[in-house]
């Protein structure tokens, strides 16, 4: 598998593509616990990592998995895991720890139907809000959502890069449909992806900002302190307690507030660099469909069919869920006559999209489906046609 470039097109599963992306990104520690529908990732890594001299560990539960990942990342390794809803729930406390201690991690969450045990082999975009707010307290997070097997590969690489760049846990929200989808995979003609490493951000000037003493949580202009791994000569302290720039507990109101703002702003202030959206025929469209994950595939099919019927419809695909690209959505959709948003949940992300359009006057329609099945193109088409009629947008008509 390592000589993938010579094989050109191959049939690959989304979960396998994630594993391959992690290997490409330089991941060197996997700590995980078996859970459907993500287990293929652990199996792939268990087979491939030893050959590459990298560490695979099957832990006693998901809490231990993320704990071990944090430990591995603290000493300088790119660590990741693969899980699904129930396991992701168990990880939440330590996701908060990783956010506060600013530990780069990648969690591949192959979302299954919930809540609870739910439908383990069936899809739902059920963890959208869990990824954002699953742990307690204010923090920011990065979550990405690929819509194809090939994109799962590049999204995973990007997840590792962003984790290092922003010193944060990054979640890859893959729905079960993409995780288990098998389709053509060919990266032989692609440019080599950029790989970002922790050391890229550590320079002497930055580390000596504290008067010769390394400050692991320095208030740097970018908001991201350089990360010298533990055990490499800088003896410092990690804690989940709110801490000062040196890493020790503080309850000083000013220091706490400074820390909290930096923690949130280091990501939220860079939303335009982090959040990627893809536009298909949005310019000149009357109606824009906003979608992500596997649903975006159905939405694209619906768009093509509607266009053939004369409707001016575009697709805005969210490749990044968090930080939420509200500004980009507003810019693209503010002059439209209708926005529809199909989701495999009760409208978790529609809340954010609707909020992004407040004041624009654009009618917003959320399409939800929670029956364990992928939303097909037909109900999306039907909703677009009905809503267009309701809001008196003529077929093929201008303004």
């Amino acid at each position, binding site marked *: 598998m390592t000589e993938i470039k010579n094989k050109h097109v191959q049939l690959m599963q989304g979960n396998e593509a994630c594993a391959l992306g992690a290997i490409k990104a330089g991941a060197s520690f996997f700590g995980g616990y078996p859970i459907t529908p993500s287990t293929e990732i652990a199996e792939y890594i268990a087979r491939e990592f030893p050959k590459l001299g990298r560490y695979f560990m099957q832990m006693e539960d998901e809490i*231990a998995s993320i704990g071990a990942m944090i*430990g591995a990342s603290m000493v300088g390794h790119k660590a990741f895991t693969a899980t699904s809803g129930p396991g992701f729930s168990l990880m939440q406390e330590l996701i908060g720890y990783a956010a506060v201690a600013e530990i780069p991690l990648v969690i591949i969450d192959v979302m299954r139907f919930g809540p609870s045990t739910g439908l383990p082999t069936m899809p739902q975009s059920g963890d959208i809000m869990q990824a954002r707010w699953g742990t307690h307290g204010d923090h920011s997070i990065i979550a990405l959502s690929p819509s194809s097997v090939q994109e799962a590969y590049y999204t995973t690489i990007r997840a590792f890069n962003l984790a290092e760049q922003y010193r944060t846990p990054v979640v890859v929200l893959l729905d079960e449909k993409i995780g288990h989808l098998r389709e053509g995979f060919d990266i032989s003609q692609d440019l080599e992806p950029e790989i970002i490493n922790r050391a890229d951000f550590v320079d002497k000037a930055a580390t000596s900002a504290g008067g010769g003493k390394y400050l692991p949580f320095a208030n740097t202009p970018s908001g991201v302190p350089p990360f010298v791994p533990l055990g490499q000569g800088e003896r410092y302290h990690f804690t989940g307690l709110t801490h000062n720039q040196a890493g020790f507990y503080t309850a000083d109101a000013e220091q706490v507030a400074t820390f909290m703002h930096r923690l949130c702003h280091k990501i939220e202030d860079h939303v335009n660099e982090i959040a990627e959206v893809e536009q298909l025929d949005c310019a000149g469209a009357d109606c824009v469909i906003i979608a992500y994950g596997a649903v975006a595939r159905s939405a694209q099919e619906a768009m093509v069919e509607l266009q053939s019927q004369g409707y001016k419809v575009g697709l805005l695909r969210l490749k990044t869920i968090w930080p939420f690209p509200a500004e980009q959505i507003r810019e693209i959709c503010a002059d439209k006559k209708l926005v529809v948003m199909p989701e495999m949940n009760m409208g978790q992300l529609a809340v954010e999209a609707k909020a992004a359009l407040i004041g624009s006057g654009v009618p917003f329609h959320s399409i939800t489906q929670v029956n364990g099945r992928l939303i097909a193109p037909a109900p999306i088409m039907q909703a677009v046609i009905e809503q267009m009629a309701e809001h008196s947008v003529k077929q093929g008509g201008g303004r």
Partner: protein
Amino acid sequence: MEAVYEKYFRDNLPHIWCPGCGNGIVMSALARALDKLGYPQDDILLVSGIGCSSRMSGYMDLNTVHTAHGRALAFATGAKVCEPRLKTFVVMGDGDAAAIGGNHFIHACRRNIDMTAIVINNSIYGMTGGQFSPLTPTGKRATTAPYGSIDRAFNLVDLAKGAGATYVARGDVFHAAQLTNLLVEASRHKGFAVVEAVATCPISFGRYNNIPEPADMLFWLRDNTVTVQQAAKMSDEELTDKIIIGKHFETEAVEYCEEMARLLADKQADNEKAGDENEV
């Protein structure tokens, strides 16, 4: 006993521990043990959980990680597997290690990963004000056991041994010199070593159990501890409510990091061989 404080402690003392607390005695025993072991401070990793005892990681001038409640061993496992050169110590409290972290504790024992787990057992959740733990002896009072605990307690030594730890000892804060020696021995042992350090908590345990004075708690330890050697000659009846101190168990078994290194070396060699064949 030599004073080694300046070398091993950061300049952020005083600590948060109450007067009469045994945690400081365990911390000084660890400092003296480190001094005897002679590891460079840059190569020592000290990981702790959450609770009174776990504040120790903030005070010692080592590579230190104050983790989440119960999860110290999970963090330490990931770090140690990736950097086996780090001499690893994990400090936990009794609730931390045996209740919320019980699963990680037995699995760390089972893997036999080379580190020293120090469980400071003061029989109580001190930081939250005195609730009973899985190591609180049956019948003892706590804020959540106002009529005496009806729960049976773990014997941590038996638990560790049964789960696969390859070195198991128990010391206490009255016998501080012995505790130091046990920590030295535990660290030199190749594999997962558990040292239970029975400690005093006059504020949150003694106060509810008629031993509110720090000195009385130490005398209680003096009077209720027997060595492993003495215990061997005593009947079960005589051993009721006695705390048996000393090295309980030591054996050799395959150590996790070494086994991981062997697996990686084998598979990398296979991989290179397969690569060479493909080239031909």
